[in-house]
């Protein structure tokens, strides 16, 4: 095992054993590497996690238990970004310089009900890390469509066969358009992707100002797939260009993982029950949109 991987495997986890996430929860794996990566990059810095209403309200522990090795401030659905700003302000006033304030917000919170707050905190360039924990629907309430639900996906409020117009919001590009110092997309589908993931978390720890990490995480009950397939689905999402891994560091766009032989998006879609109703023509349409988004992203690269 390479030394960098050995270090990661042997580090203390800040999401403690006994948490109540579902088996196969992608975000549970992702948050372990966000917290681990931030701690490895800045060991002295104490993390405060700000969590709006979500599965993570429950995973954080039933009173009086804390499932995390860090402080957790729970907020209403729409105000996590503003509250992270308030906590960071208080840390400055109290002279606590070694604090990292991290929002862990779902796609409903970030793309929908809390979007104005996220946008405003970015516009103010608050010195916080905002993580969009994207599982592509309101999963805690039982799989309802959010602004980050992909076209064609079944949810309980977009049943199979329902007319669904529009496409998943491209939060990374929207946030980069705020001119913030760092934006990245992350997913954990393989060991090389873990390296990419941790490099982006490290970069987020180094940069000052508003940092936005968009992380895709599979949800077995919401996406309808066997719990053992979580990392495999993340790999397929990246290798099919469904979820490109990229970053925008101080305005410089870069695709960080460029699949050598891109897979058809159908390879990703066919693994999940939420897409099982799609007709071949609908998959072709999704493929067209995936290709358009990839080309647009490639066009943003400066070199």
């Amino acid at each position: 095992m390479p030394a960098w991987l050995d270090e990661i495997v042997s580090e203390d986890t800040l999401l403690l054993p006994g948490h109540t996430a579902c088996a196969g929860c992608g975000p549970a794996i992702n948050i372990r590497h966000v917290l681990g990566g931030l701690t490895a990059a800045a060991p002295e810095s104490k993390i405060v996690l700000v969590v709006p209403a979500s599965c993570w309200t429950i995973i954080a522990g039933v009173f009086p238990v804390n499932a995390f090795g860090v402080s957790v401030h729970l907020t209403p659905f729409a105000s996590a970004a503003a509250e992270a700003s308030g906590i960071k302000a208080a840390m400055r006033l109290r002279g606590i310089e070694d604090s990292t304030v991290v929002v862990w917000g779902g796609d409903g919170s970030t793309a929908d009900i809390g979007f104005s707050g996220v946008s405003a905190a970015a516009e103010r360039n608050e010195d916080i890390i905002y993580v969009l924990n994207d599982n592509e629907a309101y999963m805690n309430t039982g799989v309802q469509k959010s602004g980050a639900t992909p076209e064609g996906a079944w949810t309980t409020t977009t049943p199979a066969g329902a007319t669904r117009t529009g496409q998943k919001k491209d939060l990374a590009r929207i946030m980069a358009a705020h001119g913030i110092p760092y934006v990245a997309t992350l997913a954990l589908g393989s060991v090389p992707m873990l390296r990419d993931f941790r490099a982006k978390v490290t970069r987020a720890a180094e940069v000052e100002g508003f940092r936005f990490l968009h992380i895709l995480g599979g949800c077995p009950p919401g996406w309808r797939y066997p719990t053992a397939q979580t990392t495999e689905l993340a790999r397929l999402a990246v290798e099919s260009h469904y979820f490109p891994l990229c970053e925008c560091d101080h305005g410089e766009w870069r695709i960080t993982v460029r699949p050598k032989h891109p897979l058809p998006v159908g390879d990703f879609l066919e693994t999940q029950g939420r897409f099982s109703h799609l007709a071949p023509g609908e998959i072709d349409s999704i493929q067209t949109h995936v290709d358009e988004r990839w080309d647009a992203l490639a066009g943003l690269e400066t070199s």
Partner: protein
Amino acid sequence: MIQTLPRGRVVMTANEAAACAVMLARVQAIGCYPITPQTLIVERLADLVVGRDDIEYANLESEHSMFGYVIAAARAGVRTFTATSSQGLLYAHEQLHRASRERVPLVVVNVNRAVFAPWSIEPDLSDSMSQRDTGWIQLYCSSAQEVLDSILCAYRIAETAMLPVLVCAEGFLLSHTSEVLEIPDQDAVDAFIPALHPPQEWLLDPSNPRVFSALPEPKDYFAFQRDVAEALDDARGLIETVASEFTTHFQREKVAALELVGNPEADTALVAIGTIGDSAQELVADDDNLLVVRVHTYRPFPAAELASVLAGVSYLSVVDRAPGFGSLGPLGNDVLSLDLKRVKAAANFIGGLGGADVTPATLRWALQHTRSSTQSGGVAPVYVPEGV
């Protein structure tokens, strides 16, 4: 250049007085979002914090975020302030419930304004009255001086009781009307308001990992709510003590729960709140048989004290400046639910909505209406007719 605060005897509006009080209280984090008629408070504060690295001032994108900002900053251990009106207070509604249940010692000024629809920027109390069940201490003022003094007391009350305090002042009638008032010296305020020291187990401390407001079992949830109710009940005595200490310390009378004017033995009483309670005081000059009760502390409701001062009253008029859709007005409901055995006739009047005038003549009409009535409470309020 850092601006200095005016001091001593000055002429200013309640909005300016509020900004001065907040600075004198050594606020540390201010959340801002504009809304008429409150805006002048946060504008004045923006000027006053220029060059101050000991104060954070944030422009938020909504009142919901603004309340979230000050709640989180307070939770992380600093003294906060924000101000709003009308739609802004309503937009932040879930944060109000949450602030009291998390025991966050906020001080917020609400400059009262009517509620949409239709649009109005004129004063009435619909905005804060509709928040009366959110677990906040509510103080209603009737002068710019009382706004300043109540804000200073509010920090003491909030940080002792660990409950949020809403200081209410009617828009334009107070917010934009200049009055003569006294601004205390910084040293005197420093001696009155100690530095903020929230309980360690409540404080968000990054080096002591804890989760706050985590999902409890039903019995624990129930216990948390009961604690809020008990803290509000206990705050009655605290509000009294702080007002009494204020009076001694600043040599200026500070109303605690109720202001009484007129004949305490009268058989007729008028209970009102805010500036109507002030206007009503004019009536006692030509009415020996009248007691005017102005309610300053509305939550926690001073039920026992009111029941005591109204015990001998036969004719009781309660005047609200907020509607009572489907019931009595808010103050009417609270006062007329007291056990007042001597009352022969009582009525709840609703006037002044959306800035409509409530003059001494209006109140004389109300008293006459009650005296000529035989109803001892009634189920419906009397909306003051146009022209009285």
